[in-house]
């Protein structure tokens, strides 16, 4: 190259490069700022008392144990319901459905579901589960709402990994005389386990972070429940996110709010990492 590029082009490229670096830097800065600030304000307020008690005026304690338990219950109940449904739907789409048009419509519906904002899920969940099925404002109504909300995630991740199972596996199994269900149970599903686990973890992430859909379905109560009560209708309870909202917005107790935020942040981090790890490990195991 004898002649160098013109100054104008050089400047243009320089500006664009600068903007790119600045944008990427800004993202990292925002994240670091957020994490740093939340941990700084929150970690100091996390104490054993906070984690192990319930809010009580008489004893003067403000604990978040009920909220931690409620979050776990909702995760558990939602996953137990959504996993079979989602995996089943993915199996239908990938293994059974022969009509392309039907598959397209179902995929369209799945995309639509994943685009609906959580406040609408909250409202519809209230209309359907709380009022129509008269479950009352309860953990179980909240879980049912979240089942609809997380269904697209489970379907999508399972379907992705079903698609990567080689057709030879299926043909080999069928040629040996296995029935279709037997083939799916023994050959296809074990090979698609990575997608199912990833879907699970992503759903947990979504459930942990959800608040708008739970505000009117699972309620705002802060009582300690056991698992048996949690599945019964009429037992309301707030999850960590909902209680964060209540502490910050309604009561102005920011110390507790930041403590919960710090816990949520750590949980988010763990969920993110485990999704990545699970995908890596299970894919490797599949060879």
């Amino acid at each position, binding site marked *: 190259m004898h002649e160098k590029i013109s100054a104008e082009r050089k400047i243009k490229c320089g500006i664009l490069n600068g903007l*790119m670096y600045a944008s990427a830097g800004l*993202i990292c800065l925002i*994240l670091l700022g957020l994490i740093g600030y939340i941990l700084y304000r929150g970690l100091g307020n996390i104490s054993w008392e906070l984690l192990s008690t319930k809010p009580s005026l008489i004893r003067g304690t403000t604990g978040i144990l009920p909220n931690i338990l409620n979050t776990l219950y909702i995760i558990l109940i939602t996953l137990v319901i959504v996993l079979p449904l989602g995996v089943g739907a993915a*199996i239908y789409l990938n293994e059974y459905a022969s009509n392309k048009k039907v598959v397209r419509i179902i995929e369209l519906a799945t995309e*639509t579901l994943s685009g*609906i904002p959580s406040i609408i899920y909250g*409202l519809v969940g209230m209309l359907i589960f709380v009022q129509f099925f008269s479950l009352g404002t309860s953990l179980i109504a909240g879980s049912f709402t979240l089942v609809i909300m997380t269904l697209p995630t489970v379907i999508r991740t399972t379907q992705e990994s079903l698609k990567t199972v080689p057709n030879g596996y299926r043909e080999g199994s069928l040629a040996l005389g296995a029935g279709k269900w037997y083939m799916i149970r023994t050959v296809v599903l074990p090979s698609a386990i990575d997608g199912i686990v990833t879907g699970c973890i992503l759903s947990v992430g979504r459930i942990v972070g959800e608040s*708008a859909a739970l505000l009117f379905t699972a309620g705002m109560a802060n009582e300690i429940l056991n698992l048996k009560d949690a599945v019964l209708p009429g037992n309301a309870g707030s999850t960590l996110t909902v209680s964060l909202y209540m502490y910050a917005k309604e009561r102005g107790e920011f110390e507790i709010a930041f403590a919960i935020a710090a816990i949520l942040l750590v949980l988010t981090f763990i969920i993110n990492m485990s999704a990545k790890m699970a995908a890596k490990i299970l894919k490797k195991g599949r060879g």
Partner: protein
Amino acid sequence: MSKVKKASVVLERAMNCIFTVCGFLTIAFVLLITGFLVVSGLPAIKEIGIIDFLFGTTWASTAQTPSYGILPFILSSIYGTCGAIIIGVPIGIMCAIFLAKMSSPRISGVVSSAVDLLSGIPSVVYGLVGMIVIVPLVRETFNLPDGANLFSAIIVLTVMILPSVISVSETAIRSVPREYEEASLALGATKTETVFKVVVPAAKSGILTSVVLGIGRAIGEAMAVMMVAGNVANMPGLFTSVRFLTTAVASEMSYSSGLQREALFSIALVLFVFIMLINVVLNLIAKKKER
């Protein structure tokens, strides 16, 4: 022998049925949600009158002579979303280009994890930080009596849409065939020129998808907006406290009754229509891309 066969045939049939039912569940859910929203949202619109409802400028649901105009909410939602898109999309696309084309794989990995983490942070956490950091900052910088306004909401929404804009655009940019770039580089264009004049135009439908997804996320966000936008039913201005469609539903739900409650369902229906429009746009983009 025949008994075994019979049992297995029955089992096969049963599983076939079960999977088919699972498969059609999502369609059923979409219909269920649409049905419930339409049935519970239409009565109030009918009673108030669609013109008065959509274009009325005052919302006073608890006044003696209540008026239910949701134009302030619609405009606030649109302005807030536009603001977040105008600020967030250029930053997001620049960052996506950086991640896909300009940086080393290691740096890309680190920044990508940061983006993933940002997208996983619950919206109430964004709301909390917005409430404690952004709102006072806006109040002091612009010398306002209250910092909880549309501007604060736009800033928080911008941060919240960035992850989806970045990750979808990045995928789109990465999927542009390498030959395009090589041809451009061979003609003497610099790396930066190649990326901006060849790769980005080739990835434009994917980038557009990311923008539309961002719009969907911003217009549907409730909790974070509720915590930073001030939550007063004003006509929107950059520094006035506003209520979005989402927060209008959320803020009065717990104590509403009668026509007020029905009007809230109608607001949700309007929001739903917006989301459906966004879905249609997404599908149009996808269809165009296929061609």
